[in-house]
């Protein structure tokens, strides 16, 4: 099963720069995805946890992945231009607040614009501090987070208290943004999904989740992934921007105004994180609420690193997180059934390692596989605390199992001063 593969199309078309040896052809990828889905389907049937590939599950995964993905994209823009952005959380907070503040007064679309601008404002601050003053990027990001939290709380008390439907910690309601369900198709897919057939229903669930009750912002967010790829890797603008993250001094010698591109990148970064915030306050909910972002900015950052500073990878990271997050939220059985999936996957991995004559790896995988199978069969219910931890554990597990050869932009996080190149 792979939600990632549904959202990470750009990864397939990326040039042979990263990990040159293991590019799969599109048809191979389809085969792998299908095999994964089949395996997933078997687990579903074996466990009876039909929700794990239901239309609702996929739709929820998508909507939970969107804010994380947007924050991650924000991180990508900034870090590709060489500015580490730990301030995404703060920029996201600004997005939720400004989105709601404008949204309840002047309609949701104004809210979207203002939310993006609010996030961009956070980006601007980060850019001034890191680019103009050359301060350590992490300090600046941490300060942005503190300031954004403090400022929005302060502003809520002024702007929302006493307004009808508002309180010092919550904005009044915002009218909803449009969302669509593809008529006919969605219904038909949901119907097939409900039959719980092998494979076909799961496929229908995946497709159905992508055409059911899709908010306009979800569409925007999904489109932003290939768009980001296109802009950053296929346009002169993107080339210049990335050059600032790889070798700013070299870029400078070729007449690139490094400051300008860093500024643009960090401001766009803030805008994207802000859009993620707007998604929370206008689509996922319909009001601003203090603490609403709940650390999603950090998760977005993690998704970006998970995705090796590439749009496809980060979409996969956000997708994985959103997917497990919705499994966890929707039903306790889901996570229980994942134990079996884990056991099966690890058993397969063990076989593969055995084939490659790595006996220790193989043994470890087999033991863990056995344990999780044992766990699956010995209890009917995973303690709810472990269910809460599932998305985080999964992320960690995937990272630990897939070997990471992280390739961050070379000059990422290194303060740059014009005219100091030797």
């Amino acid at each position, binding site marked *: 099963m792979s939600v990632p593969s549904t959202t990470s199309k750009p990864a397939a078309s990326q040039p042979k720069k990263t990990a040159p*040896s293991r590019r799969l052809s599109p048809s191979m990828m389809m085969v792998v995805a299908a095999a994964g889905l089949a395996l997933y389907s078997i687990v579903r049937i074996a466990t009876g946890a039909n929700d794990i590939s239901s239309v609702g599950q996929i739709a929820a995964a998508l909507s939970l992945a969107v804010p994380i993905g947007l924050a991650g994209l924000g991180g990508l823009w900034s870090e590709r231009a060489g500015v580490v952005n730990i301030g995404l959380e703060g920029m996201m907070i600004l997005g939720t607040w400004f989105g709601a503040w404008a949204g309840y007064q002047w309609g949701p679309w104004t809210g979207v614009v203002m939310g993006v601008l609010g996030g961009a404002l956070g980006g601007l601050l980060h850019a001034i501090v890191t680019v103009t003053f050359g301060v350590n990027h992490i300090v600046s990001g941490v300060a942005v987070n503190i300031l954004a939290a403090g400022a929005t709380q302060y502003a809520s008390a002024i702007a929302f208290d006493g307004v009808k439907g508002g309180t010092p910690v919550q904005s009044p309601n915002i009218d909803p943004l449009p969302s669509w369900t593809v008529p006919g198709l969605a219904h038909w897919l949901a119907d097939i999904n409900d039959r719980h057939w092998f494979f076909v229903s799961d496929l229908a669930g995946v497709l159905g989740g992508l055409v059911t009750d899709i908010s306009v912002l979800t569409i925007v967010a999904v489109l932003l992934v290939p768009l980001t790829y296109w802009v950053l890797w296929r346009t002169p603008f993107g*080339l210049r921007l990335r050059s600032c993250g*790889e070798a700013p001094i*070299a870029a*400078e*010698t*070729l*007449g690139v105004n490094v400051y300008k591109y860093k500024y643009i990148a960090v401001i766009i970064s803030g805008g994207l994180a802000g859009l993620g915030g707007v998604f929370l306050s206008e689509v996922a909910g319909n009001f601003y609420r203090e603490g609403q972002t709940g650390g999603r900015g950090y998760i977005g950052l993690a998704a970006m690193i998970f995705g090796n500073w590439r749009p496809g990878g980060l979409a996969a990271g956000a997708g994985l997180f959103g997917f497990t997050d919705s499994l966890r939220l929707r039903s306790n059985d889901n996570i229980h059934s994942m134990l079996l999936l884990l056991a099966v996957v690890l058993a397969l991995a063990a076989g593969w390692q055995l084939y490659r004559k790595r006996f220790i790896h193989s043994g470890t995988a087999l033991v863990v596989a056995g344990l999780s199978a044992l766990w699956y069969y010995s209890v009917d219910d995973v303690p709810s605390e472990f269910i809460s931890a599932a998305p985080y554990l999964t992320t960690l597990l995937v990272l630990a199992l897939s070997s990471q*050869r992280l390739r961050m932009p070379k000059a990422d996080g290194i303060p740059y001063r014009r005219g100091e190149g030797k």
Partner: protein
Amino acid sequence: MHAIVGENGAGKSTLMKILYGMQKPDEGTIVVDGEKVSFHTPGDAIARGIGMVHQHFMLADNLTVLENTVLGSEKLYGIGDAARKKIKEISDAYGLGIRPDVLVEDLGVADRQRVEILKVLFRGARTLILDEPTAVLVPQEVDALFANLRELKSEGLTVIFISHKLDEVLSVADEITVIRRGTTVTSVKPADVNARRLAELMVGSELPSPQTRESTVTDVPMLTVTGLNLAAFSGEEEGRKVLDDISFTIHKGEILGIAGVEGNGQTELIEALIGTRELDSGTVVLGDDDITAWATRRRREGGVGYIPEDRHRHGLLLEAPLWENRILGHVGERPNSKGPWLDPKAARADTERIVKEYDVRTPGIEVTAASLSGGNQQKLIVGREMSHEPRLLIAAHPTRGVDVGAQAQIWDQIREARHEGLAVLLISADLDELIGLSDTIRVMYRGRLVADADPATVTSEELGSAMTGAARGHLEHTESADDASGEEPDASGEGAEEER
């Protein structure tokens, strides 16, 4: 073709950066084509047809050659096929042999140098500034470069170039300007001066006299290396052998010079010897100890001195004061520490000593390493490594970018230590240095030691041909190779220079 020469820190690069708009002059004028100009950014200079190849590579490793080339000038041919076509065109016209779609990080230095030149040509520059373009090239490559430059000149382009290699300057320049401590000393025609006179103009005083050679080689082995093998573990060439069955012995009092084009395994050899790279196979014996399994710290404290090729990356903590840099690499040794404790007082005192003995020009030991000039940084490193009575010294490009005066000093120190029984592994791109200093020379090519030579008789050109893979085995001196015009000495060579 106008050459600029001068000591380290004379202001050559600074002057060029001003011409290129990277720095602003306090006063003065620049006239291009009879028109007074003032540049605020390199962009302005580029627009005026000025292009510059910098002393240090200005390339983004993680971008392709194509991307590095079009960056900043995307308006000309876009960033796609049109640009690729143009690059091929230029590459073919000047025989640069450029592959547009490889990552720069996978290129060797010579290829990078060509990419730098390509970048300039791509922009249609009429005035070329080349800041020490030859420092990392072997003689054949230098010749090829100059051939290209002559061709450009014949097309009406202007070339300004900077070099510390005075023979080179004399052979190609039409006019030479000497600068010293930021001012022009004089302008001369190459015909009117010789290398010695030029050097004296640069330094402002007489040069140290040439060394006398006396052998100090003993027959006590100090370093014995057998069967080193190492495969690349990443990148385009995963699995290729970067060290291929390397064996050699250095005796007490011997300097073994390794010649080779950069990227042929020298770096890996050094890493293997100081223990920062794990070998696939092979043994390293220092004196009587098999140190193959030793960690770096143990090796260094066990008598391996190390002058790294890149002092900024491997030799210094730039933001730390000199006395802390004196501790670096020898933290467990006296006078730097006692037991688990540092002894800053003793370390400071010893730094003072090094500064005095090795003539490190600094106002004090509390200044950061970054505020010293490169030459003085290098002297500090040499002083530090020599202070721990090494049994083996690994010296990689010990005088790179260092001016004539400091160079002589460093050579003297190495010789002196050799006299007292030090074994030295010398790796250098400066063939004159290699020939002048070594007792034995081996040539490294594609991870193998392919040739050896007697420094007393061999010429740089002969070495150069072995370095490009054109010659193998024991290099016997032949009179015909003395011809300085730089024909390939071995016509049957594979022309490996272009191959990669």
